[in-house]
Structure formats: C-alpha cells, structure tokens
C-alpha cells in the first residue's frame, strides 16, 4: 500500500507539489469563473456555475492536501510494471524521455512524421538504457516510415512524408 506513510527525515519525496498544483488549478478556474455569467434565464444556472463549483472544490481539496502534508503525509509513487519505485528518481532518464515527447512538437511539422518520430524514438530508447543512438535512429526511421505508410493507407492523415522535399 502506498497511502499514508509517515515521512522519514532522510528521504523526502514530493510533498508540497501536489497540494500546490491543485491550488493553482483551483485558482485558475476561480479566476475564469469571474468572467462567466453564473445564472441564465430559464436555465437556472449559466456557463459559469460549473467552473465556479469545480474551482471551489479544487481549492478545498488543495487545502485538505496541504493539511495532510503538514500532518506528515507523503505521497509515495505508484507501483508500476517495469519501474522500481524504491529507487530515487533519475533526472537523466526523465529529461531524455521528456525530450523525446516534446521535440516532435516542433519537428514533426517541419521535418515530417517519419523523421520527427525517428528522433523521438531514439531519445526514448536512450532513456531506457540503449547505448546505440545511431542504430536506434535507423530502427526508429524504419518503424515510423512503416507506420506512416500503413496509417496513411488506412485513411489516417499524417501529413507529408518529408515536407521540405515536398512529398
């Protein structure tokens, strides 16, 4: 069980991140709700009602989580297949994988899905311990090219194969 575990002074996993995140989200919704009409003729409630209610509840939840943290609750990571949650977080692994997720945002549009995808592929394999980046880029390119052809054939629009080349 990963629920309420008392914190030890030596190891301090994420504590304030969760309540802070929830409070920020609640604040964003409350701010948005101020611009929206709460009530509407005939309908009883207007478009702002749900936004306001969700914002208020999120704020309350954030405060409750903050209270839990003050009382010493820590939020342990979830048991996941293939992951060892007792190990400390590896920033290298995380950032490499995150680069694989965020690079395609720019790359896929300019260089096309197969190339953008191949780079993402190689970055994720790297994050998972592969030590042959060039081989991985090639494998990635083969995988993304096959994917591109197969899905285009199935009627899914994945854009041009290589936009700078115009095809």
């Amino acid at each position, binding site marked *: 069980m990963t629920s309420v575990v008392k914190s030890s002074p030596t190891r301090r996993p994420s504590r304030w991140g969760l309540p802070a995140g929830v409070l920020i989200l609640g604040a964003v919704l409350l701010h948005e709700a101020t611009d929206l009409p709460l009530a509407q003729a005939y309908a009883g409630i207007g478009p702002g009602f749900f936004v306001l209610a969700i914002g208020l509840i999120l704020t309350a939840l954030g405060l409750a989580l903050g209270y839990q943290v003050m009382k010493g609750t820590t939020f342990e990571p979830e048991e*996941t297949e293939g992951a060892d949650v007792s*190990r400390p977080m590896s920033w290298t692994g*995380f950032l490499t*994988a995150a680069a694989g*997720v965020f690079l*395609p945002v720019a790359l896929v549009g300019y260089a096309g899905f197969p190339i953008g995808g191949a780079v993402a592929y190689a970055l994720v394999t790297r994050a998972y311990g592969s030590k042959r980046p060039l081989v991985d880029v090639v494998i990635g390119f083969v995988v993304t090219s096959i994917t591109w052809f197969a*899905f285009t054939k199935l009627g899914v629009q994945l854009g041009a194969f290589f936009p700078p080349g115009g095809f």
Partner: protein
Amino acid sequence: MSIFDALMHGFGVAMQPMNLLWALVGCALGTAIGVLPGIGPALTITLLLPVTVSMSPTAAFIIFAGVFYGAMYGGSTTSILINTPGESGSMITALEGNKMAKNGRGAAALATAAIGSFVAGTIGTVLLTVAAPTISEIAFVFGPAEYFALAVLAFTSVSVVLGTSILRGLVSLFFGLALAVMGTDYQAGLPRLTFGVPELSDGIGITIVLVAMFAVGEILFVASRLSQDPQKLIEVNGPIAMSREDWQRSWKPWLRGAALGFPIGVMPAGGSEIPTLLSYTLERRLSKKPEEFGHGAIEGVAGPEAANNAAVAGVMVPLLTLGLPTSATAAVMLAAFQNYGLQPGPTLFTSNPELVWGVIASLYIGNLMLLVLNLPMARVWVKLLAIPKPHLYAGILIFSLVGVWGISQSWVELLALGLLGLVGYGFRCCSVPIAPALIGLILGPMAELQLRRALAIGQGDPLTLVASPIAAGLLVVAALLLLIPLIRFVQTRRLETSTLPAG
C-alpha cells in the same frame, strides 16, 4: 422480439466472415497488450479510434470488445509466468499464480486461469444478455434529474473506490471535470477556459488526454525509475492442462468468482480490482487447505481470474443500457460511441439492434476464440516479452504520436499531449489514480447538460433534483459513499485517542 430472437439475430451479424475476422483481430490484439507492460486496453482502444472511423460501428465495437476481454486473458499469463501483472485486474492472480509456476505447476495455473476466464466470461455474457434489455427498459423512465444523479453516483464511487486515498481520487475526478468544461459553452456560446487559444475552442480532445495520461505519463515515469532487475520468466514444460484434482478444486471458485465479479462490475465504480480481491479473500476462507495460500493455491488463481472476466461483462451493462462508464476502458468505449454520433442508453437497443446484439453475440464468440488463443498458445504470447524494453516504450510513443498527430496535424495538440503527459507523470509520482479523471472528463459534459435541463424543467428550483425517488435514492447512495469513510476515519481517531493512557 424476445431476448433469444434478438441474440440469434446478433449471432447472424457476428458470424459474418468479416466480423469474425475483426473479433479475432481484437482478441489477438487484446491478448498481446495484456501481456505487454505499459499499454492497457483503454489506451489501445484510444489509439484504434482514428483507424476505426472508416469502419462500421459494429465492426469497431467487435474489435474493442475483443481487446477488452483479451487484455484480461493476456494479463493473467504474465502474472503467472513472471509475476508482473499486465493489468490491474490480474494483480491478485500474481500472488498465487507465480508461486504455483515456481513450484513447477505453471501449466495448471495457466489452464485454470484460461478455462476459468472462459467459464466466467461466458456466464457474465449470459447475464449481460438477460440483464441489459431489462435494465434498458427501466432506464426509459430516466429523466434529466435521474441522469444527473447517476453521473454524481459514478463520480463519487470511482473516486472512493479507485486508488489509495479518497482525497486523491477526488483530485483526479475534479481535474477531469476541469478539462471537461474547457471549450465553447453550448448554451451561451461563451468560451470557457480557452485562454484565447483557438485550438481549445472545441474543448480538449478525449484522445489527447487519454494518450497523454496513460502512455506519455507511463513512458516518463518508467524512464525516471527504471528497474534494473532482469525479468525472470519461468519456463513451463509439458502441455497446459489440469489434473483431476485441479478441476475439482477449480470449478467452485470459478462459479463463485463469476457470482462476485458480474454484479460488482455492473455497479458504478465496479471495475475488476475489487471483485478479484474479494474472490481471493473468499477462496482463502472457504479453502480446505488455507495453509497453501501464499505458497501457490490453485483456488487463489481460479477465483480471481473468473471474477475479473465476469466483471468485464458486468461493466458492459451500465455502458450499453445507461451510457454510464464505470472503468477507464468503458469510458473510452463511451467516447467511441459518441464519435459515431451514437448515444448508448435505452434507445440504443431499439435504434441500433444490429450493433448492440452483434457486439453481445461477438462476446460469446470472442470468449471461445480467446480460450483457443490462450490455452495451447500461452508460450507464444510470452515471446512478446522478448521485445527489448527501450524499443517497446519507444514504439508506444510513436503510436501515441500517430493517435494525436493523425487527428488534425496540429503542433498545439502535440504540445498539449506533452503537458498532460507531465500531469500524468505527476499523478503517478503521488499515487493519484487516473481513471476518475477520465470518468470526469467523459461524463462531465453529460452531468452539466442534464443538471441544466433538470433545473430548466423545474424552473430553477433545486428541489426538482430530488423530487423523484430514483434520483433521490441515487444521490443518497452517492453521499453515503463519501460520508462512510469519513465517519469511519473520525471513529478510529476517537478510538485511538480514548484508548491512549491518560497523561
């Protein structure tokens, strides 16, 4: 038309060669993703959505149902042979199943899991066949107030039941609801939470949220805490079969598992975790050899495996009759119905009998296919685990990119995928369950719509929400679900303080 005639008609649809082929594709795909880590049925169906838009809804849902059932079969194989449950519903199976495999009884464990899944899956499907039309008849009296109450009940129950803490379950739910209100308000035409981004004016796509939270979040999380232990696959020699004694010890747990799994699957927030756990506890208590539990008792595999497959059939009941998803996978299937412009609910049985009965009939066929695919071929499926981890997770990312890029080729949506993936990562770091967010996202708009309708009918009087006994009853149950754990918490607190010695 009687239920039997309708079902026979459904078999006529499901037995068409192409539909049989789709059922086989779905079952094989489901078994494969059940075996593989990092990808589950909800994510698979999401990634299939862009591919299936050009198919008929009947063919698409035959595939989806095959994936849903197949994942349960595949998950049990890995639980037994390498002690890594591919699906949450197979967690309990790993307890006894893996011990059995270590004691050289892997073949019997695989057999009781597969045959038990088949028996319970078929019983569950029979119960679904009988219960669904009946419940859909009752649902005809449901008005906006009842639907709103039903959504509230689904909200509270998923938050309370799933995950380790109610507070975090609620955080997840309201995060999903916050995403659900994004976009243009349909009544007043006002933009809500769009922050001036034109791509958000239609709200945020369910596919993006799902792929981000399930796939991207998982890729980031596992990369940041990569396990260094090599997986130990236990070899199974000989045919996958059971001895006479195994049969004697298995058949009662199968039936009891089915009896637990189906009704709990039907209930809001059923899912497959709770019935498997209950079945395990029950078998342990009823067993003549309780000392074997923890060391490889076959009852501990037979019962929970039966329970999780019956629960899957149960989950289909509220989905088809009320349009109410009670698990992440069911939520995705509801989204798929909406993609086709179909609203599951009582009218679906009269307006699209081909679809509903074709899919139900294909569940019977799919179960039989899965038995054949899994019993003799369990070793073949395990070979999938030979795919190196780096390439498996990289491949999952590529399919995620296809799923999102294929919608509208917009970089804004790829950015949303990444950002929500970070949220999914954060959820995993703090053990916040993901399913409540999906239920909130998918049921949120329905809840808001029905609340507004109900209030408009009642001319703004909030008491109309509890005017009918059904709506009031559902809301009371929803409130109790939230209050009971709270009361228990306060009580244990009081007990702790009163038993403490003074001073």
